[in-house]
């Protein structure tokens, strides 16, 4: 909401706050000022100059030489504008003055004649678009007086952020009420210059339909339109508004259009009631009705759009067709134009829900709909139409025909809300006595009557009858007017809550810590993705790139990895925790949402070092990370080669591992990423990745049950097995482990060798077995027996024998 602070002060005599102070108070009241613009900015050096003489320039046909009376007596000024007249006043920049934009006027010789200043056009001053001539000032002026004062530009425009509950602040009077120390009782609506008043004009009232000046006004649906007032003004001359009106609208950030329309906008900005003016001659059948649109109706609106109306939308119709979308926008056929002579002024109350549904249905928002959606004061309707009619007569001439019509099916009654002072204290944490509450609420127009020991009956004023209808709404008002900063800053006692810390957060914390310790950097990717990476589409996406919910987390990470490589970063180690979404099992159900952790790595496993270069990341690094996550997330999780045909498409199918926990599908995958699907620079090496779905409610890991630290020595034996490539090492390892029995403390694979000295198609696997007993030193014989069992079992199960 943009307001002219000067206008606000005109409505609130005695309001002494400077604009900056007003802005601070508004912020403390919940309506922060986003911007305060000094409208006279840049005009500080300009004054009013009166032209005393105009004569031809001796050296140029197209120029004039004037004598201009400014602050220091008459000076010669060369001027090229054709409209300069003797005796008139113009904006004048004397030598040394700066005009907006910073240009400074100097004494300058123009075609042989000195010019000591400049008469300015609207455009040069940033006051308008006119550049055809200098800006003629109309009215009484003293030559040399500051231009800003003369033009009423010693004003500040406040751009106020108004929350959706405060429709009452969408007017100058609403802002004045909030700012004036004694509030409501000090406000007034000053008469317009030349305003004769409407005292002789009566009001014709009816509950559903009423006729005056040959126009019948009807309310068809009191839900959509609780009240409709109208006035006919005949004989207006449509044209530009007088300067004071146009200036005022501009000061409040509005654009002047023509005198009739400007008059309705003026009243809306002043007291918050939107109005509309119809060209009476365009209305068919001498009737106006407010009600729901009928099937198949349409209207061409003021913005030039042809709009089809849905049944039930709020429209104003004449005897034939819709002529306006009620509370939203007028029709183009009935708008006021230069040839309009008679007008019908509409001043109605439209219900917030109806206006909102209608304007959303049409996909537009206007100054009027913005106010009706937030609630227009139901007590100002008559004030508004009389003020608007008076202003039309003042600025456009004409006279009011007949009575002002008021169709009002159920006159408004002020709601009363019961407010318990004890409850105010209970919610706010500070005690209040009834008198204090009364003092705080009265300036805003609330009438507070004690009705019981602990009850006040609060009568709600019209301008707050949309947002303060409950006790708690008034409690907020008490806190707001008292000022939030006046409440003490004291911590109180509290009871611990009943909600346990969610175990999934604990698991995520543990995984994050483990992966950071692995040297990975945490990334974050929005869960919105392009169709290639999602199963669940959005209904109202903004872009194709963000039109689906992400089905996995790895694809996003690989995208970041690609971008890092493209920027020349060779070592990339990323992980992220986040949600992924799969299509719902049945239509209409929620998509399956799961917490995931994903990893993507490429480059060296350690930074460069003088002692030697670390190896590059490979599949087995992905395996380590996968195993690590599995350990944190699942009890007894283990790695298996991905069964044929099961690897997710991101991985090379023969270089992919599955993380399995219990029965059922794998909970995660890891391995070497298929480079075909990535965009990589030529120098890029192997890329590995992993992704694990986390359990919905992870079980808390049981405490470690400590094993005794062994006191007896261990015996170690090394074996080398040579076996064909088609026998998996895992089979040899598993067989050895099982055969070694309970004396086996550890099994380590310490070498894998494939060389030309081995038979074609074979490799050699070196395994170290460590045997130990907790209660005795093992005998040579026990160890030998265990080793024999290992050899026999490995041969039995895999056919593999130890190397020579």
């Amino acid at each position, binding site marked *: 909401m943009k307001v002219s602070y000067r206008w606000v002060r005109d409505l609130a005599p005695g309001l002494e706050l400077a604009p900056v102070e007003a802005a601070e108070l508004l912020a403390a*009241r*919940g309506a922060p000022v986003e911007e305060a613009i000094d409208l006279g900015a840049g005009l500080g050096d300009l004054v009013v100059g009166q032209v005393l003489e105009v004569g031809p320039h001796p050296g140029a046909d197209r120029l004039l030489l004037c004598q201009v009376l400014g602050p220091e007596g008459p000076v010669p000024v060369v001027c090229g504008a054709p409209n300069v007249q003797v005796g008139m006043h113009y904006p004048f920049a004397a030598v040394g003055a700066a005009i907006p934009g910073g240009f400074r006027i100097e004494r300058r010789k123009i075609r042989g004649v000195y010019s000591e200043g400049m008469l300015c056009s609207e455009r040069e001053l940033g006051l308008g678009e006119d550049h055809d001539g200098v800006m003629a000032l109309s009215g009484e002026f003293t030559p040399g007086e500051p231009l800003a004062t003369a033009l009423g530009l010693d004003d500040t425009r406040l751009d106020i952020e108004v*929350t*959706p509950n*405060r429709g009452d602040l969408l007017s100058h009077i609403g802002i004045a009420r909030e700012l004036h120390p004694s509030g409501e009782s000090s406000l007034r609506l000053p008469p317009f210059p030349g305003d004769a008043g409407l005292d002789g004009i009566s009001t014709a009232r009816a509950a559903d339909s009423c006729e005056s000046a040959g126009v019948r006004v009807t309310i068809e649906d009191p839900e959509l339109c609780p009240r409709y007032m109208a006035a006919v003004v005949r004989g207006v001359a449509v044209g530009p508004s007088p300067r004071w009106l146009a200036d005022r609208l501009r000061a409040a950030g509005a654009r002047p259009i023509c005198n009739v329309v400007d008059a309705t906008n003026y009243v809306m900005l002043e007291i918050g009631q939107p109005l509309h003016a119809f060209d009476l001659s365009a209305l068919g059948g001498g009737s106006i009705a407010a009600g729901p649109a009928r099937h198949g109706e349409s209207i061409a609106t003021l913005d030039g759009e042809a709009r089809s109306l849905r049944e039930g939308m709020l429209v104003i119709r004449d005897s034939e067709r819709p002529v306006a979308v009620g509370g939203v926008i007028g029709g183009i056929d009935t708008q006021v134009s230069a040839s309009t002579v008679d007008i019908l002024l509409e001043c109605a109350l439209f219900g917030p*829900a109806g206006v*909102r549904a209608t304007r*959303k249905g049409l996909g537009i928002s206007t100054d009027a709909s913005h106010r009706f*959606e937030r609630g227009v004061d139901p007590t100002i309707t008559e004030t508004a139409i009389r003020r608007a009619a008076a202003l039309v007569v003042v600025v456009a001439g004409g006279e009011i025909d007949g009575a002002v019509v008021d169709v009002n099916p159920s006159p408004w009654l002020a709601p009363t809300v019961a407010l318990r002072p004890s409850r105010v204290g*209970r*919610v*706010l944490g*500070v005690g209040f006595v009834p008198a204090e509450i009364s003092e705080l609420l009265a300036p805003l127009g609330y009438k507070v009557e004690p009705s019981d020991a602990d009850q006040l009956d609060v009568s709600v004023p019209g301008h707050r009858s949309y947002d303060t209808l*409950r006790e*708690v709404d008034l409690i*907020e008002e008490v806190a707001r007017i008292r000022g*939030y900063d006046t*409440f003490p*800053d*004291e911590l*109180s*006692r509290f*009871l611990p*809550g009943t*909600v346990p*810390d*969610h175990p999934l*957060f604990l698991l995520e*914390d543990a995984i994050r810590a483990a992966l*950071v*310790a*692995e*040297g*990975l*950097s*945490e990334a*974050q*990717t*929005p*869960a*919105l993705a392009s169709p290639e990476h999602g199963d*669940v*589409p*959005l209904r*109202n*996406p*903004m872009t194709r790139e*963000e039109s689906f*919910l992400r089905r996995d987390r790895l694809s996003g990470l690989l995208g*970041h990895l690609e971008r890092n490589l493209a920027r020349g*970063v060779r*070592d990339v*180690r990323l992980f992220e925790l*986040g949600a992924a979404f799969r299509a719902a099992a049945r239509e209409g159900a929620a*998509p399956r*949402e799961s917490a995931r952790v994903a990893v993507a790595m490429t480059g060296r*496993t350690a*930074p460069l*070092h003088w*002692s030697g270069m670390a190896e590059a990341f490979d599949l087995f690094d992905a395996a380590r990370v996968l195993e690590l996550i599995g350990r944190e997330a699942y009890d007894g999780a283990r790695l298996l080669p991905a069964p044929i045909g099961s690897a997710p498409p991101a991985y090379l199918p023969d270089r992919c591992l599955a993380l399995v926990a219990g029965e059922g599908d794998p909970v995660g995958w890891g391995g070497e990423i298929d480079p075909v699907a990535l965009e990589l620079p030529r120098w890029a090496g192997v890329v590995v990745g992993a992704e694990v779905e986390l359990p919905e409610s992870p079980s808390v890991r049981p405490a470690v049950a400590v094993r005794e630290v062994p006191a007896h020595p261990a015996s170690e034996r090394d074996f080398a097995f040579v076996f064909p490539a088609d026998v998996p090492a895992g089979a040899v390892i598993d067989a050895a482990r099982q055969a070694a029995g309970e004396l086996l403390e550890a099994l380590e694979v310490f070498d894998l060798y494939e060389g030309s000295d081995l038979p074609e198609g074979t490799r050699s696997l070196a395994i170290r077995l460590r045997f130990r007993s907790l209660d005795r030193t093992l005998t040579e014989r026990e160890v030998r027996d265990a080793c024999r069992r290992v050899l026999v079992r490995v041969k039995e199960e895999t056919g593999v024998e130890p190397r020579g």
Partner: protein
Amino acid sequence: MIDEASRLEADALAVIAQAGDHAELERIRTLYLGRRDGLVSGLLRGLGRMSPEDRPAAGAAANALKVAVAEALEGRRAELEATTALARPAVDLTLPPRRRWRGSVHPVSRAIADIWAIFRSLGFTRARGPEVDTEWYNFVALNTPLDHPATDEQDTLYLASGMLLRSHTSPVQIRTMEEYAPPIRIIAPGMVYRRDTYDATHTPAFAQIEGLVVDELATFVDLKATLAEFVRRFWGPAAQVRFRPSFFPFTEPSAEVDVKRVIERSDGRREEKGWIEIMGAGMVDPAVLENVGYDPERYTGWAFGMGPARVAMLRHGVADIRAFYENDMRFLAQFA
């Protein structure tokens, strides 16, 4: 006998001083102190043949000899040790250490963790809820009718099914209160979604942290004091807090919380930053408590929400929020 002892001592000390390595020292030790044939041992054995009156003095001399030889051996051993050390190959200790990659926590995660640490110490636990939710949880249960100006469909991302991506973490309030009885004292970090296009301060998906307290004694003063305490713990004791009235459909009274950071430099100078909006907060609207079956006459509540990405931007001097989602290693690694 005593002369014999001092002669042996002089000899022994002389050879020990000359010994060039550990093996030679060991030979000398055996020569003098060897249990069977050692010269000092022999001397001690000779004591038995002496007269009882001479024996004590001679015994003392022999023992003193034994101690002196042992000490000299030890001294020379330590000397040799030190000499050998100098003989090891030199290492250039100015060479860089053998480093590993250092991982890093994302700055937004870090902000969440630090915020959580403070609220944990104030008695809060963490709750969570789904990111895809219903209009009921995201709007209606939170006292936000679907035809209210605050519920603009333009701002919310919907699925074809009519479900939506939560536009704030407040649905977690409802879900938590449905599941648990008061007192409630939770924070709920999580991702939320809006129909915002990318710019320096907006992304369509961003993190939020919700807080909720419901109790028989929760008041506006309590809300103010707790959030002010949080601000001072997070931004330092000199930070200032300001509460301004605002509007949220699910709280009343509602407030915007502004922070003025005050940076105290090591040279004692203070730099005051401007006021920055960091949180929305307020007393839980009684209609919200009614929607979850709590008695609003018995219980009151307060709630707040803030954006950890914004907090992280302020903290690390990040001017453009998009830097958080580009995931450039050179950006992320700075937080290692």
